């Protein structure tokens, strides 16, 4: 059988990562059901952790390891892309406002951004500096 094409490898890698990321996020969501009023911990956690991981993976794969056809699509596009979510964040912000939790909506949005951005930067910096990893 001919070796799978680069395109097929890419698609399978994204798909596999997507399955894992989606299940992880969905699992957390079901385990810690959000009530619409309090801090949306499940989404917040997957978004922050997923962004940290992406910063680490992408930096390591692009700047420190030899090129690979499947690692970045699997870990980056697939896993981190599916683990994190933008749409759920938007709806949670709207729902918090809808439930008169405006201050929480503002802080949730800002803290998500700050933690995401800073986390990505930190993870990238650490990845560049790490001697063993």
């Amino acid at each position, binding site marked *: 059988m001919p070796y799978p094409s680069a395109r097929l490898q890419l*698609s399978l890698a*994204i*798909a*596999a*990562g*997507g*399955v*894992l*990321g*989606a*299940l992880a*996020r*969905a699992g957390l*969501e*079901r385990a810690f059901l959000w009530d619409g009023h309090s801090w949306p911990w499940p989404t917040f956690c997957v*978004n922050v952790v*997923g*962004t940290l*991981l*992406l*910063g680490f993976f*992408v930096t390591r794969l692009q700047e420190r390891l030899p090129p690979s056809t499947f690692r970045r*699509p699997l870990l*980056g*596009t*697939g896993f*981190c*892309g*599916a*683990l*994190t*979510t*933008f*749409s*759920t*964040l*938007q*709806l949670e*912000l*709207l729902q918090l406002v809808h439930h008169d939790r405006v201050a929480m909506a503002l802080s949730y*949005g800002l803290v*998500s*951004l700050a933690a*995401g*951005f800073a*986390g*990505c*930067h930190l993870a*990238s910096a650490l990845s560049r500096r790490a001697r063993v990893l």
Partner: protein
Amino acid sequence: MSITAWLLVAVLGALGSLARFQLDGLVQTRAGGVFPFGTLAVNIVGSFSLGLLTGLSVTGAELFVLGTGLLGSFTTFSTWMLEAERLAEEGEGRLAFANVAVSLGAGLVAALAGWLVGGAL
């Protein structure tokens, strides 16, 4: 949630990610330049769609599969943040800020629009 629901989440996790990759590539190639229009497009479409589901009062297993499974996987927070961070690193601070602000603003508008449209249907 039933096993079927979880299986569907898994499948849609894969398909949503693939669709994100395709749309991102399509839009970004057309747009050109360094601004991440591809991710923006994906996130706007996903936010509108999730708003629509909310407005249509989709709940339970259907919302879990389509909202969490498909749209949650289709849209991405990590790629958005990474792209903003890289723009900032490369000295494109204003573009980085614009990426964050425009995505957030347009995302909220899209989600709200979807919610209103869904509610009216």
